[in-house]
């Protein structure tokens, strides 16, 4: 029998277990960050910067805040949570999840976008020009799901505030999260969409048509909290860093502004 067949079984087993063992070693210095989808690019940049200086593995999970909140409430192994609105953080609190070191981290603005090659000209929503007038009869307005996606909730609030909600309610395309909503605009499946300013900046396939006045909706605040009842040292130090100037300067490159302190 050729010698290859005589490799001892335990050696083979060891080869397979090495990556597993290595991963186990990794677990001790891993921090799971659950963040709203709208933070994807900004957060990735921040994490990259932090990891270059610190010996730690930051694992981000991006989805709509509603989805993430539900997962955390069901026991997902998150260490930190950044929601795109207060509502979902409050909801988590009500679900008897231990929140610690909660702080309002960032602020965002709501914008109306169109595909990059669109011929629609800039205007400010709530003024003389209505969004409905810019929308062809058979086309739709892309927003996040208005019943639970934060960007959608803000969009609904803003539309109600400028008096366009009843006209547009039946003409919406509801995305699962704000990035999905933006993807529809990128592909020109919908000629217009409502997303965060940070999202609009992140994509070169859409352009800003106008910013919704701050008065048309509640402030879009991103609260940050530690959700792990027994946070590791790495978690706590990352949490501290996130609220610091270094992090904020990186994040503001992507269009976020520091939260206005109450």
């Amino acid at each position, binding site marked *: 029998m050729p010698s290859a067949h005589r490799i001892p079984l335990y050696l083979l087993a060891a080869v397979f277990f090495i990556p597993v063992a290595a991963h186990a070693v990794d677990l001790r210095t891993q921090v799971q960050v659950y963040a709203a989808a709208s933070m994807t690019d900004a957060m990735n940049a921040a994490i990259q910067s932090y990891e270059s200086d610190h010996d730690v593995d930051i694992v981000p999970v991006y989805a709509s805040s509603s989805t993430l909140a539900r997962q955390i409430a069901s026991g997902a192994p998150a260490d930190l949570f950044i929601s795109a609105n207060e509502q979902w953080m409050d909801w988590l609190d009500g679900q008897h999840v231990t929140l610690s070191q909660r702080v309002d981290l960032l602020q965002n603005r709501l914008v109306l976008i169109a595909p990059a090659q669109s011929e629609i000209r800039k205007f400010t929503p709530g003024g003389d020009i209505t969004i409905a007038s810019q929308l062809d009869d058979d086309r739709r307005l892309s927003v996040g799901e208005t019943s639970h996606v934060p960007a959608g909730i803000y969009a609904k609030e803003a539309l109600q505030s400028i008096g366009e909600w009843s006209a547009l309610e039946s003409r919406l395309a509801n995305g699962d999260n704000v990035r999905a909503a933006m993807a529809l605009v990128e*592909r*020109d499946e919908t000629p217009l969409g409502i997303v965060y300013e940070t999202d609009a900046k992140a994509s070169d396939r859409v352009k800003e048509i106008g910013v919704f006045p701050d008065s048309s909706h509640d402030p879009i605040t991103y609260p940050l909290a530690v959700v792990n009842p027994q946070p590791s040292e790495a978690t706590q130090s990352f949490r501290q860093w996130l609220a610091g100037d270094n992090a904020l300067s990186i994040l503001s490159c992507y269009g976020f502004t520091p939260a206005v302190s109450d």
Partner: protein
Amino acid sequence: MLFEAIALSDAEWQAITLSLKIAGSAVGWILLPGIAVAWLLARHEFRGKALLDGLLHLPLVLPPVVVGYLLLLSLGRNGWLGQWLYQGFGFSLPFTWQGAAVAGGVMAFPLLVRAVRLSLEAVDPKLEAAAGTLGANRWRVLFTITLPLAIPGLLTGTVLAFARALSEFGATITFASNIPGETRTLPLALYTLIQTPGKEAAAARLCVLSIVIAMISLMASEWLARRARKRLEERDR
């Protein structure tokens, strides 16, 4: 009070009828192509047969969201097929129930073809040859021998496809989006309710509803197949 508890709300009715309409259309448009492809694979050898077989099974093995995305690329308003559709007919599939029917049909297609192919292969080609010697041309053989003998399998495949289309989620939500009254089928409605806080009870109701509908379709298929088998044995000229 009990009546109010179990009576369906308007929104629920809408989701049910929409689901049935979409799943029904999905099966409707894939039935003939499905039978044709199954017949091709069952009875013919040709170059590229393995390739066709592989392509056919893609929706079975790809994540439904990926399939939905591929549909968007091809049939979206700017897709390579979709723009022709829009320019020619002024119609775009995303956000419409027809689009949801397309998504459901694509996901159900491999299941239909598999079932129909199996039942066609089970038809003894010697019987077809015998029919030929009795003067039946290829079409007559197909309609009087092959298809009737394959009907139980055909029915099973159809109901399977219907059930699959009914429960389709990932491809539908990606391609057709989640529009109430247009594409918000039972699975999508259930999903939305789950996400929304305070709607757990409504979600549970829809869940029970989905199970009931699935059970009804499964039992209907069983009854139909049994009747067809009995009918087969009683056909006369």
